[in-house]
């Protein structure tokens, strides 16, 4: 129960950071590879399944309160302008309109690191917030938006990052278009020397598109005041982040803001930040004295709430004849949109393989388009596609099997820090994955396929952090009747958080899952956990849950020892009963112990332990794709994906497999379908609905085979878990692109691999 403060290093919302954290003073023995577990790891059906299949699950989008009002946002129609005037009088006169908020009557609340305010007089992209209307109904609010007259002084704009980097470009902000005024530079060794010593060098440019999260539940928020206390229901991946952003924006104590999110309809990284809309809802609600629900429509979802930045990556590799990598370099830039963010994607190149000489130079560039946000494995998805294409190209030039080239450059330590990994089982992933796809038997020499339909097999590797870490807490309340309540201030995006928390409590306390209730997603009733992104949730929160449960068991055992008048060492805990080893009929149930303590509820709070010092924690994997290309239509069909991954312990195989399916299909649609299209002449986005923006349907489902090569990583934490949300999507596009190359013998270097690009590449080959 006692805690200590230690130095801690973990991957969080600010990237990999050195910090201090409160952690348990002692560690529990980790569930290692040979731990015999009865509930954890089993394919338990998700706890929230019943509510979700019956329509009873209440999402933020469904929250309905008495006297509810409805707010909609008016967004800039132009990519860059100064607002000369806004006339809201007609809108205000419309019956049913309760409040119109614009820059004229809204406090100047800073946003995006003081680069703008809640309602700015200068709008910097099509979709920037101009005004907000609250009304008696959604329909009236929408009508009122059309009655607001905005007088824009149109300014020059830029949408292409290459153009934006030029000094002659229109400026998105007066201080310039390049984040930090220059590239993020990393180097080790001497890259020019490395290229000089290489037997072969290969260089090419790869590019990726902007894709949009498009979760099904729109970004939305409901705000309601009771006196000076504000409750906000928010579709968010970061409860406490939203709470603090709202409190800060409204200059009120965090204790007066409660953020609730029981269920959310997907996030994928887009809901990691507090949205302006949540603050706007709170402001209007306070003013009109009624609850406000604010939701985005699909167009706003495609314009204004984030995307994965694009990338142009000039990559170069140098190697010896035997395939040993001697040097790697990257020059790249990506479009972050109108407000600061990062578009870096060089980590895979820096860390996937052993290579002594590396240099990366990465620019994040502002343009007059919607701002990017974290999106499922930010940077790694773009970077892995390009880098693994380069490695594939290099293998071809060397006359080597691409898989052998990767094995040849396997690294046992992290090439950036020099530290060993807590575990790294990528060689097993190569071995088992290649066997499952038929790498040796089925894969034909690149470009040897003839005829209209040509098949190919390709692969790509993956690295991600995802070890989680402190701070994360979990509370267990054990009732006298033997039922338990697990509470943690974390989030479930559909990833199975509810379920694994119950499984862990059930495992340790040996009480049936149906007697366990889980509450997450509430800043007021739950202990603190971090945001749900970066594949952090399970590896951060599961050890805290186990700690809470183990403490509860200790508590019961020490009470049992006093009640049964014997030392704890003479006690056995089994199926919610405590019995003496020497006299097994002297036994007490949980209910009896709690009853004798004269408590109705026993409470413990567990914490995530520190990550081990001196190690890197990473997840690894490899995906193998088999594709068929129709050379007449240019269409690529993914036949099969084999995903072989090292992800530590599996908490629940059923939800794990599902999340892998999702990541892989999203990765395949990134490779083949999705793209935000912008008209460069007007600066407007052309793909603002999900007819024009291509999302995969059930018909785009390939055969998927999942192989987990890991059992547990006891060095990381007491549960031995690594996160998997992101590893699932990282290598998919690279594997597909390499399979297309194997099928056709021509490289498609830009995503998505659409039929026009395939046909163009084929025509150039002839």
């Amino acid at each position, binding site marked *: 129960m006692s805690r200590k403060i230690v130095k801690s290093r973990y991957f969080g919302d600010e990237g990999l950071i050195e910090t201090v954290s409160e952690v348990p003073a002692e560690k529990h023995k980790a569930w290692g590879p040979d731990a015999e577990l009865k509930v954890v790891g089993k394919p338990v059906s998700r706890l929230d399944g019943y509510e979700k299949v019956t329509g009873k699950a209440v999402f933020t989008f469904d929250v*309905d309160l008495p006297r509810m009002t409805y707010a909609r946002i008016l967004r800039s129609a132009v990519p860059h302008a100064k607002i000369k005037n806004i006339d809201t009088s007609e809108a205000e006169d419309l019956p049913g309109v309760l409040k119109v908020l614009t820059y004229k009557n809204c406090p100047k609340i800073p946003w995006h690191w003081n680069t703008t305010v809640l309602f700015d007089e200068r709008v910097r992209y099509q979709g920037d917030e101009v005004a907000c209307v609250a009304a008696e109904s*959604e329909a009236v609010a929408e009508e009122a938006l*059309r009655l607001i007259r905005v*007088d824009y002084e149109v300014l020059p704009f830029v949408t292409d990052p290459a153009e934006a980097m030029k000094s002659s470009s229109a400026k998105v902000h007066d201080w310039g278009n390049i984040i930090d005024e220059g590239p993020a530079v990393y180097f080790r060794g001497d890259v020019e020397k490395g290229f000089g010593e290489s037997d072969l060098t290969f260089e090419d440019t790869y590019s990726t598109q902007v894709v949009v999260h*498009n979760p099904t539940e729109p970004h939305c928020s409901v705000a309601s005041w009771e006196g000076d206390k504000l409750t906000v229901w928010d579709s968010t991946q970061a409860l406490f982040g939203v709470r603090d952003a709202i409190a800060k924006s409204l200059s009120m104590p965090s204790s007066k803001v409660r953020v609730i999110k029981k269920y959310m309809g*997907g996030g994928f990284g887009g809901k990691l930040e507090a949205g302006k809309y949540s603050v706007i809802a709170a402001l209007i609600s306070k003013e009109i004295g009624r609850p406000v629900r604010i939701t985005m429509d699909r167009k706003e979802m495609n314009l204004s709430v984030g995307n994965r930045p694009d990338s142009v990556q000039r990559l170069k590799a140098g190697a010896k004849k035997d395939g040993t990598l001697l040097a790697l370099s990257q020059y790249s830039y990506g479009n972050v949109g109108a407000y600061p963010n990062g578009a870096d994607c060089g980590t895979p190149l820096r860390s996937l393989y052993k290579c002594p000489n590396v240099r990366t130079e990465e620019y994040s560039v502002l343009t007059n388009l919607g701002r990017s946000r974290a999106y499922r494995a930010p940077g790694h998805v773009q970077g892995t596609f390009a880098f693994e294409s380069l490695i594939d190209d290099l293998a071809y030039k060397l006359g080597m099997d691409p898989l052998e080239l990767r094995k040849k450059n396997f690294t046992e330590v992290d090439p950036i820090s020099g530290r060993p990994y807590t575990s790294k089982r990528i060689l097993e992933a190569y071995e088992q994955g290649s066997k499952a796809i038929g790498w040796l038997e089925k894969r034909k020499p690149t470009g040897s396929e003839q005829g209209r339909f040509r098949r190919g097999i390709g692969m790509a590797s993956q690295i991600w952090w995802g070890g989680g870490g402190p701070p994360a807490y979990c509370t267990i309340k054990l009732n006298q009747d033997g039922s338990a309540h697990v509470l943690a201030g974390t989030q479930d995006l559909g990833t199975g958080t509810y379920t694994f928390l119950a499984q862990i409590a059930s495992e340790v306390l040996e009480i049936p899952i149906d007697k366990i209730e889980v509450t997450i997603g509430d800043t007021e009733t739950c202990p603190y956990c971090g945001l749900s992104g970066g594949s952090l949730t399970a590896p951060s929160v599961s050890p805290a849950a186990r700690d809470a449960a183990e403490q509860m068991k200790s508590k019961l055992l020490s009470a049992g020892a006093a009640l049964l008048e014997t030392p704890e060492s003479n006690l056995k805990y089994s199926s919610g009963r405590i019995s003496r080893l020497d006299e097994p009929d002297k036994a007490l149930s949980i209910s009896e112990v709690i009853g004798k303590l004269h408590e109705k509820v026993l409470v413990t709070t567990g914490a995530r332990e520190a990550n081990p010092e001196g190690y890197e924690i990473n997840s690894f994997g490899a995906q193998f794709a088999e594709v068929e290309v129709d050379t007449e239509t240019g269409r690529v069909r993914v036949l099969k994906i084999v995903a072989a991954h090292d992800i530590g312990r599996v908490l629940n195989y059923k939800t794990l497999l599902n999340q892998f*399916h999702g990541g892989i299909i999203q990765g395949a649609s990134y490779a083949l379908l999705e793209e935000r299209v912008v008209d460069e*002449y007007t600066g407007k986005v052309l793909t603002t609905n999900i007819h024009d923006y291509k999302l995969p*349907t059930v018909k785009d489902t390939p055969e998927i085979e999942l192989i987990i090569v890991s059992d547990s990583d006891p060095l990381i934490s007491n549960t031995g878990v690594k996160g998997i949300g992101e590893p699932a999507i990282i290598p998919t596009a690279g594997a597909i692109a390499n399979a297309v190359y194997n099928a056709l013998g021509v490289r498609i270097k830009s995503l998505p691999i659409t039929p026009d690009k395939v046909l163009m590449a084929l025509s150039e080959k002839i």
Partner: protein
Amino acid sequence: MSKDSKNGGISRRKFLQGMGSGIIGTYVLTPAVSSATEKLTKNAEKLRLTMPLTMKVNGKQVHIQVEPRTTLAEVLREQLGLTGTKVVCNNGECGGCTVLMDQKAVYSCHILALDCSGKEITTIEGLMKADKLNPVQEAFIEHDGLQCGFCTPGQIMAAEALLLKNSRPTRDEVLEGMSGNICRCAAYPNIIESVLSAADKLRNESSSMK
């Protein structure tokens, strides 16, 4: 595209030229738009007139007043409190709002409520019999045919409609029947398994009844 400045509004072509060459210009939404807004306001008043609607929802007759512009999805969610039906695109593109109308799957965001007069509507809330899950719902839990759950009511209603029409769907028929419903979490492999397994269940139930 309309001719330049004819109706006093902004000339799109000139505007484009201005933007393209980087000229800083001003445009104000003036007379043409203004008269349009007047019309809009008048229309709005007209629209706010409500009309009576009678339909059957989940087995019960409902008599309500609705505005002519209101969609079935809006009536279900806002007037009848049946929030199991989700609105994702509000544009007939994703199937999130799928309900049954006279036993056929429809996108409720794309149907005006007044067009449902006399129809029989079934929503996700109407699938359970007393406390018992419908076989499709059971199969979605068992085969984990969902992640975040937001598209799930629509998926289940689409599956229900498919199985009402075809109790022995092949895998391809399941793909066809479910292709109008987008799942962004991409739980598709499990959705396919859920529907196939529900079909088996339903067949077993009906054969055991015989």
